């Protein structure tokens, strides 16, 4: 086999893969932007109902993000003829909900205020970090690391429901920036 033909085939395949990776990253901007909106909506709710009763609201928010993303993916598929997988986002949502609830509960159970306040957010950030690795997105990776830093700083400075509300607002801002960067 001609090595130049082999090299050309590899280069063309790599270019096609890069185009697809770009499409997948852009598609991921949809649930991330919606998640940012959900966290903004949850900010006042956290102050109203308290951080230990936020679970159902988070569940509904993640379900709404998933449903709207699914509809949006379908519409994009109709318009552009390309449909991305929704399961990477679903994995993030399931980990964020399940892991977050477990972290919050064990924080309360063991009397660890830090785990109760920052634990669910750290789980969310770690899930996004894994997503960044999967879709090879530097923007999502930077956002996830920023979120981790935010949680450590806020949990060290604030306490109670205010700490949770501030984290929600900060995470929403970071997610908005990240989704704008990957949608470009």
């Amino acid at each position, binding site marked *: *086999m001609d*090595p130049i033909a*082999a*090299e*050309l*085939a*590899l280069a*063309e*395949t*790599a270019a*096609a*893969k890069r*185009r*697809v*990776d770009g*499409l*997948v990253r852009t598609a991921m901007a949809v649930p991330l932007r919606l998640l940012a909106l959900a966290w903004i909506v949850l900010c006042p709710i956290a102050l109203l109902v308290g951080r230990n009763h936020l679970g159902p609201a988070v569940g509904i928010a993640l379900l709404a993000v998933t449903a709207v993303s699914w509809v949006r993916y379908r519409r994009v*598929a*109709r318009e*552009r*003829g*390309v*449909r*991305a*997988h*929704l399961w990477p986002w679903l994995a993030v949502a399931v980990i964020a909900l399940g892991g977050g609830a477990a972290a919050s509960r064990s924080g309360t159970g063991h009397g660890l205020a830090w785990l109760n306040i920052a634990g669910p957010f750290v789980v969310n950030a770690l899930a996004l970090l894994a997503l960044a690795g999967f879709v090879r997105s530097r923007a999502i990776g930077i956002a996830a690391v920023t979120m981790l830093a935010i949680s450590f700083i806020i949990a060290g400075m604030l306490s109670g429901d205010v700490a949770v509300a501030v984290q929600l607002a900060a995470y929403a801002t970071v997610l908005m920036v990240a989704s704008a960067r990957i949608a470009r």
Partner: protein
Amino acid sequence: MTQHPIHDIDDDVHQRVRLGILASLSGLAKADVKHLKTTLGVTDGNLGRHLQALEEAGLVAQTKTTGNGRPRTWVKITAKGRRALRDEIRALQRLLGDVGALSDQPDPAREPSLDT
């Protein structure tokens, strides 16, 4: 003795357009034929022939839908197709690695002669 990488190359996959189709579908849930045609810059007939060959080999699956009264053909890569693409890329990389190793060795025909 290890087998030459040429034996790892899959005849169903080893073709520019087929490799392009599999690579274009690899990270997606599905794509329509029109998208593939535009992305790869091929004609309907050419794309259709390659898609048929890939489908017969079980590497892609095609489904037809009618949305808004418009017929549309969707293509998605199968698990076998994903494996075949990965194996083909590895085989090509191995082949190029072997060629690179050969070209690093000094060519006796080109060695300067000490004969006077």
